[in-house]
């Protein structure tokens, strides 16, 4: 079995301000052992909510309505995450130990009043019964592994004494401290400079190789996908509209949205001569979602049937390449 987490028809709704926001409306995907799954999509499409749902870290005014999230543990057991209470013991044991997470902004994701070392030790000692000293030694080793210079000194410093890149390394060190099977990274480099981003990606690549950790990488940068992904899932307005291996999806984009997205970004090296085409219109209001295919109002292939319902998942050519568009054949043909 190469899947480690499978998500089926996940629906997560938000209930803030007396309104219901159907942030996730039937998301299905699989994370494979030792592979990187990239989730791309524009802001607000539900990438982070997917991650939070898996970790059961949703805010109070939200609920998983339907669907299942299953963690396939090493012993072949299936843990039904969606049935666990948010802060139950089982869920807490999964968190950090089996599934770890790093966040977008390392500035705010570390508690400012505790030292880096303290925060890593806390993580280790939550899941393993070892002495403080041992835990600290392990933390030190982790920091060294993550390429933090002068780790002996750094371990007793506070987050604000670290630079952005360092903090993200420290975050990763913390996430990796209990050897998780899955690492969920929610836009881990958006707040960082490109040169630092390159460092972080290098590190993540190394981890994947050395520890066989599955990575779910959330991003909105197609470039990142091209460079790092084994598998890709493209999200739009709370649905995964296309997924598959990176090669499949990027070489043969089969959903009008994926295709348009790829055409709308300038590619380095092509210079001023390349043509970029914006996607028409704007992302719909999350409270006023289209009834059928979410992309229909902006789609070049729009037809009446698109308004009826969100298209079913379809596999292209019996492969792993999934698409949710009734006209995907036409799209592929035009591509």
């Amino acid at each position, binding site marked *: 079995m190469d899947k480690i987490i499978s998500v089926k028809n996940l629906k997560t709704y938000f*209930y*803030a301000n007396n*309104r*219901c926001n159907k942030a996730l409306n039937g998301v299905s995907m699989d994370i494979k052992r030792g592979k990187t799954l990239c989730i791309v999509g524009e802001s607000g499409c539900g990438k982070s909510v997917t991650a939070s749902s898996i970790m059961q870290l949703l805010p*109070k*005014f939200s*609920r998983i309505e339907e669907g299942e999230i299953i963690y396939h543990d090493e012993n072949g057991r299936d843990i039904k995450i969606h049935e666990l209470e948010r802060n139950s013991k089982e869920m807490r044991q999964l968190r950090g130990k089996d599934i770890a997470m790093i966040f977008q902004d390392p500035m705010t994701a570390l508690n400012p009043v505790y030292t880096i070392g303290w925060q890593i030790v806390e993580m280790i000692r939550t899941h393993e019964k070892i002495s403080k000293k041992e835990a600290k030694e392990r933390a030190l080793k982790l920091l060294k592994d993550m390429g933090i210079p002068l780790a002996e000194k750094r371990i007793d410093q506070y987050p604000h004494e670290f630079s952005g890149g360092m903090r993200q390394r420290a975050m990763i060190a913390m996430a990796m401290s209990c050897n998780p099977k899955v690492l969920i990274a929610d836009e881990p480099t958006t707040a960082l400079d490109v040169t630092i981003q390159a460092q972080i990606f290098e590190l993540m690549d190394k981890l994947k190789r050395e520890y066989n950790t599955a990575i779910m990488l959330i991003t909105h940068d197609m470039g990142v996908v091209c460079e790092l992904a084994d598998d890709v899932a493209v999200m739009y307005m709370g649905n995964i509209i296309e997924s598959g291996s990176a090669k499949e999806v990027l070489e043969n984009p089969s959903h009008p949205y994926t295709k348009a997205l790829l055409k709308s970004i300038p590619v380095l090296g092509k210079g001023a001569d390349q043509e970029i085409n914006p996607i028409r219109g704007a992302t719909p209001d999350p409270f006023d979602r289209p009834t059928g295919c979410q992309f229909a109002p902006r789609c070049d292939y729009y037809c009446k049937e698109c308004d009826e319902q969100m298209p079913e998942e379809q596999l292209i050519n019996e492969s792993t390449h999934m698409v949710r568009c009734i006209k995907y054949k036409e799209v592929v043909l035009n591509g």
Partner: protein
Amino acid sequence: MDFLSPKKRLYKKFDKIKEREENKTFKESKNRSIKKLFSNKLTTVGLVIFTVILLACICAPLLTKYDPLAVDMKNILKPPSSDHILGTDKIGRDIFSRILYGGRLSILIGFGSALGCSFIGVILGCYSGYKGGILDAILVRISEIFMSFPQLILVLMLVSIIGQSASNIVIIFIICGWGSVFRMARSQILSIREEEYVQSLKVFGLNDFIICYKHMLPNIIGPIAVNITLSTAMFILEEAALSFLGLGVPLEIATWGNILNASQDLFTLQNNWWMWLPVGIVISLFVMSINFVGDGLRDSTDPTSVE
């Protein structure tokens, strides 16, 4: 009252919201702030109490036929009756009418002081925050000096200097209170000073005053309004406290503080409840209602607040 677990109760609420959403039956109000303001029950209650008391004070002549100053030695310390709804005081004045007319002055003192403080504080704070530099540094220092006095101490000293009268009290409250508004306005302006629309006005080379007072000020009106309401409440309480120490508005003038002050002695406290209880309740209620409204205003103007 249902006895569901908190989680179940929450989920029941969710179901209701979802149903409404699916049937598209929710009411969408145009101004989210106002909607939010009224969705807060406490604020609504506060607003109602506030309006009732305020209107009653303003319309005092319509509600009572008694002159608050009319001494009636034949009707002294009468308990509430149909003649005098809330009874009479030690020299036969109608308490209901005194509460209403006294409220006018108390509210005026509170509101006037709050408004005065805000006016000075905002004018200085906006410009100081926007301009920065030496002027700012000096003003901040001055405000620090004013604020490092415990307010009541400064008020007591000032009262003994310029004497007791309603307008003096207002002046004193303004002298003592502008500092905090100044600080608030300044920090608010500082927080939007680097906003790009301000920068763009600078790029156009617009006059500092126009940028500061016309373009920036409206964006901090929310917190200022909150501040005005909350300090109105504070000043009403402070006036009462001053009256208690015998340093408030001259005793012959009816204000809530003075009415309460007149019944300080334990005999009255134990035997003539109508002399202190109604007015005590009215002060507390009114102050509370302002606080409710202020709080609601704060929540509704604060974009970071959720729910």
